[in-house]
């Protein structure tokens, strides 16, 4: 079987596949990431939450090698690594599905799945690729109208399916999904979330960036919250309430408006001091 899961690779099965310690990244004077810690585990879906500008996208870019980190340590399978280019990230086994999917609309599903990593030497081994594509999509329980029609004709959810399946062609152990459901309707969102569960059941570590709390409730095992470039806590979904997570995202307990309101309630001195 050419498409192996990480479990068949023969390495010791470590629970934590990718961990970050004190990762920082600045763009000029702007500190986009400030000493961030994060752990991504095998067979688990970790949701990365945060308001706009919290540093989620920057973190993804650090992990996928688009923007290397300035400081901090990255461990992959307990080995210290540095990721300085997208190619290095891919070689380590970190696959990223970007928000814009990066599909070629004029090519068919099979061609998109294997784009840039086609089988065959000079000529394309189309049948081999198509066979593997079918097998892969079958394992993901994905339904597509045709593997040989241009992806332009597919729905948003189906296109997302193709993009996610493409991430799996390189046999990764970590899959990062950037806002996979942002542009999708209810039914298509469900389709994609099923797919995310299928990835987890294959023993992959999934990091899903999202704004949608419903998605988090539905598939995530843990929620890692970022706020203003720092990590603001990791919450197991089972034992945390919605409100606690939202509070961590918005920083409700420390935000100016709520402090003012609290002060007003407790004494009434707030009126004159502001």
């Amino acid at each position: 079987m050419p498409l192996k899961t990480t479990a068949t690779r023969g390495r010791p099965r470590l629970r934590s596949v990718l961990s970050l310690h004190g990762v920082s990244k600045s763009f000029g004077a702007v500190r986009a990431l400030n000493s961030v810690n994060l752990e991504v585990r095998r067979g688990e879906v970790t949701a990365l939450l945060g308001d706009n500008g919290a540093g989620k996208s920057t973190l993804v870019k650090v992990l996928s090698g688009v923007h290397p980190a300035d400081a901090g340590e990255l461990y992959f399978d307990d080995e210290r690594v540095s990721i300085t280019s997208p190619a290095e990230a891919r070689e380590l086994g970190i696959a990223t599905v970007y928000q814009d999917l990066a599909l070629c609309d004029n090519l068919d599903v099979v061609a998109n799945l294997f784009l840039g990593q086609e089988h065959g030497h000079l000529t394309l081994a189309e049948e081999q690729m198509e066979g593997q594509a079918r097998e892969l999509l079958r394992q993901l329980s994905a339904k597509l109208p045709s593997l040989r029609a241009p992806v332009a004709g597919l729905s948003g959810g189906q296109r997302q399916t193709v993009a996610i399946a493409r991430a799996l062609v390189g046999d990764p152990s970590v899959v990062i999904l950037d806002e996979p459901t942002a542009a999708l309707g209810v039914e298509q969102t469900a389709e994609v979330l099923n797919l995310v569960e299928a990835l987890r059941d294959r023993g992959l570590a999934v990091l899903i960036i999202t704004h949608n709390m419903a998605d988090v409730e539905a598939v995530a095992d843990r929620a890692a919250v970022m706020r203003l470039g720092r990590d603001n806590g990791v919450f197991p979904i089972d034992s945390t309430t919605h409100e606690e997570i939202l509070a961590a995202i918005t920083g409700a307990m420390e935000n100016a408006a709520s402090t003012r309101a609290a002060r007003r309630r407790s004494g009434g001195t707030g009126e004159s001091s502001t």
Partner: protein
Amino acid sequence: MSNVPATKPLTPGSPDEELARGLSLRGAAATMVARVRAGQLGSLPIVVGLVLIWGILQSLNSAFLSSRDLVNLATEMVPVGVIAIGIVLVLLVAEIDLSVGSMSGVASSILGVGLTSRGWSLPVSIVVALAVGVVVGLVYGFAYVRFRVPSFVITLAGLLALLGLQLHILGTGGSINLPFQSGIVQFMQNDFLPPLAAYALAAACSVAFFGSRLGLARRRRRHGLPARGVLAIAVSALVLLVALEAVAWYLNRARGVSMPFVLFVALVIVVDWALKRTKWGRGVYAVGGSVEAARRAGIRVSLTYLSVFVGCSFLAALGGLLAAGRLSAASISSGTGDVNLNAIAAAVIGGTSLFGGRGSAYSALLGILVIESISNGLTLLNLTSAARFMITGLVLFIAVVVDSLAKRSRALHGAA
């Protein structure tokens, strides 16, 4: 994959409904209608257009579809047709080469001067002319990749520069007659397949088609994919055989199947194969579809652009050599006039999209067939070139409108 825990039952059967449907005849027809509705037109409009044009011209002048005229047509279209193959390449990556006419003119004049005043042998002249084509393509490709100048500006500059080069090469005379016994002149004017060889070639093509389709079906079955049965393949090979033999028979009633025509069709088939079945070709389509996606997928985009510009200029030079052979002359008017526009129009009329990523080498063949048919037919009707230009322009306009409408329809049926 037996150790993968499955929480959901796996979908039974194939994830590929359309393919399974397409194996039956009615299913295939339904699929085709759906695709056309969604703007995946392929070469359907051009085939319909060609039948219309032939019908109209034949009803106006019964000599139009005569064997003698078609034999002439088949050779006449070769030089510009070869240039149009190159245009297809650049259009596939959503670029353009406006200088193909001048490039062909330069190649013509190199051949003329080489064979006459320089006294080079024919192979040397041909190699020099083609090498100049490759160099020009490299310059275009480099300028595009390095400086990001839009290709239509680069090649517009190239058009002027090459025109100057052509005048310089030809010198004061301005016109050179090629020796009539020269190989390339004989090839373009008098080289025909013997009747029996034409029938044999048609048969060989059908057998090769049958063999390759059979091999494809066998490989598909080996990988557990649905494939067409032997009978279905045999039937389509038989249809092809009858069609090709009919063409051979009809042309054999006059002078026969010309060698330049065979060369042209062979080039089309080879380029189409390279585009569809090699990694290079996949890269060309990917770049035309989405440069950014191709780059992120690890395709070397710069090399793809470079190869396409080189291919286009090379084919333009080859077209120029064939044109010189056809006219047995090279002059300051070689490659000027409507050569440029006809080559670009042929690719577009044949169904290659101006927006990149859609089309095939066959559109050069179909497109040039339309253009030359109109030109031939109107000449037979004793119409002036004024009318010819206007009608060709109209057909090009219709082709571009169809392309745009198809693009809009694709956008309506899910992002294009």
